[in-house]
């Protein structure tokens, strides 16, 4: 679970109770008024009162959703750029895989114009530390995709020509599915990756090892490996 995800889930539970309750009332009222012809009816129904009450109840449901929505999104709107523990990642979506780029020691992403010899690049795998904010810059190469980690409650569309931004903080180590949530062609259903949330110290070990491997594997002539973009704060 992620920090904002816990709030979304709490709101979802509240919504289930409220909306479920209203739905049950609507069902009962409809069935009673159409089928229950022999049931007793109040002599003076006070119909206007019922109508006003129904509108008030719906307004209360709306307000709960809107307020809860603001609260949960407040987390996502927080500026975490300055957090020293933040991990910055670039995601490149293309049919039918996910490329993930870590900036490496120099903190810069390799771009077509500027090779940065220490970037870690993974395919269909995302490794992040628990507890630290993970900032995402999301792009698509060919068609529209959507970066979606259901378990962490994060979903951002990847649209060619646009850079999507978001962030999340995974609360606990674990393994989750990364999938594409926008139809992108016949193999859309297979466009999946693995998200590994590691304990911070474990992540540090992993990152150091990957760093060494990335520097060894760096090829200055490989233009394809330099699909990154300059980091853009939201």
């Amino acid at each position, binding site marked *: 679970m992620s920090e904002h995800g816990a*709030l*979304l889930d709490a*709101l*979802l539970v509240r*919504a289930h109770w409220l*909306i479920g309750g209203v739905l049950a009332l*609507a*069902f009962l*009222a*409809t069935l009673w*008024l*159409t*089928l229950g012809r022999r049931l007793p009816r109040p002599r003076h*129904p006070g*119909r206007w009162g*019922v*109508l006003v009450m*129904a*509108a008030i109840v*719906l307004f209360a*449901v*709306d307000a709960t*959703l*809107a307020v*809860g*929505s603001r*609260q*949960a*999104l407040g987390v996502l*709107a927080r500026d975490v750029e300055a957090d020293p523990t933040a991990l910055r990642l670039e995601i490149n979506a293309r049919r039918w895989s996910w490329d993930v780029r870590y900036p490496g020691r120099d903190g810069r992403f390799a771009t077509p114009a500027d090779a940065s010899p220490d970037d870690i690049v993974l395919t269909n795998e995302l490794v992040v530390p628990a507890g630290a904010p993970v900032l995402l810059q999301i792009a698509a*190469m*060919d*068609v529209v995709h*959507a970066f979606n980690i*259901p*378990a962490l409650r*994060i*979903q*951002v*569309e990847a*649209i*060619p*020509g*646009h850079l*999507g*931004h978001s962030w999340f903080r995974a609360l606990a180590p674990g*393994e*989750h*599915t990364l*999938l594409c*949530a*926008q*139809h*992108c062609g*016949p193999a*859309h*259903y*297979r466009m*999946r990756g*693995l998200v590994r949330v590691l304990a911070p110290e474990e992540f540090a070990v992993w990152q150091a090892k990957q760093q060494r491997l990335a520097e060894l594997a760096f090829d200055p002539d490989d233009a394809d490996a330099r699909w990154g973009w300059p980091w853009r704060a939201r």
Partner: protein
Amino acid sequence: VAVARALSHLRVARVYLWAGLVYLAIGGGLALLIRWQWAYPGKPVPLFGGLLFPYTQGAITPDSYQALFTMHGLVMIFFAVTPILIGALSHWLVPAMIGARGLAYPRAAWVGVVFLLAAQAVALASFFVELGTARSGWTLYPPLSTIAPGHGQTLVVAALGLASISTVIGAVNVLVTVIRRRAPGMTWGRLPLTVWGLFFTAVLNAAFTPVLIATALLLLSDRLLGTEVFLAGALAQRGGGDPFAFQHLFWIFGHPEVYILILPVWGVVSDFVAFFTRRAAFWYRGTVGSMLAVTLLAGLVYGHHIFTTGIAPMLGAVFETLTLAISIPSTILFGNWLMTLWQGRVRLTVPMLYVTGVLLVFAAGGLTGLYLGAVATDIVLHDTLFVVGHFHLTMAAATFLGIFAALHHWAPKLLGCRLGDRLGAWHAVLTLLGLFLVFGGLIVAGLQGQHRRLYDPFVASVEHLANRSANRHTSFSAFGLATVQLLFVLNLIHSLLTRRVAVENPWQVGTLEWKEPDLEQQVMRGPHEFLSGDDEKSAGKDYLDQGEACPQKSAPDAK
């Protein structure tokens, strides 16, 4: 006389009706193939499999699967529900119910028919060209829809353009007819609520369907002329444009479209609850006002379709507020139906059974929409089957039941024969049950995290995002629901063959479509005024015709 007959709006309506019913069957068939795939991914389709997918011995491939869900959506919306609910109902009912001699533009109505039939033919042809039909999803997002190979995608986009032209012609015709051709005395406050529903639908169609036509033209230009209006990224060779602009354009049309489809049903339901409780509709002005409010809000809420695209948080909050606000007029509308029912004893006729079904599925469909109207809960549910279940409850379940209610009610005029009540009642009850099982199944699957548009939802993953046996149960419910539709087909065929003669005004209601057209028509009162007690005894009936002179004793205020 022959010309007048040939131009008759009833004939226009009948063509729309039959054209729509045929494509309803096609769209339903496509849905069953999707459901088969989710029950038994990759297994050959029984019975017709070999015929439909000869190269794979009947198995659905990932590629043809895309075509199935793309065309299921497009066929149902543009070539089935729109022709029946809007084409057939508005072309006949609007002039008949307002006491007009005919449509304002009878010839234009036939032009609309021609465009629709051409659109349907082109869409059908797309299945048979090399590489098959469209496969970009019904939302046609570029660049996927731009790079889709073959002529199928092109033909389908062109067909949408043609169908939209038909829709706009029809909408303008309805608007002018309602505004200019009402019989003397048919004031705005005396219009049957069905006419109000069809009128507001025409307003939205005239305003927003042209956006779809323009968008379809731009997409065709990208496909055929090599412009890059909606291309960016690696596919753009000459600078490119912006694929995201398409999403805005599409949903500016696409969201009003859901109200376009539901407003006629709201109108029909509002009238029927009055007809079958023998009471005037509770708070007529409130019902019309709610429909007006929804019509006005319809164009201002499309942003909730693009909550997850990274639109500015401020925009998200505005679209969220406006979207949630729609629940208030919807509640008043729904409340008015219940209050109307509360006033009297319900006659459970077959149309009323269908209408009860509409109330139930619309309550479920409307309330599940709240989850998707709030940005936070939408992030969790976006693109899951929850969304699919939600919009099927409103756009499919409610419209289907509304269509069946209307067909059963108006068959004596629309088809020239009465539909059987016994078969109709069974069809209503079993269809309602099936709709809840199928679309409820989608809602539950979505809450479990199953995404939409997946060829094989059960691909191994860390989380358990799709339940195989639950999917199979829902699929079999869908097969059952389809089988139950044979009751309707049977009823229709039997009634047409035996020409089951209709009694005059079988439902004993006062709206004008039941009377012979009368040029001297003077409208005296609202659409649902009923008598009771001594008035009823002296009149020998319990309703007042809208055009009938006042009975001796003034009608009781039917409030």
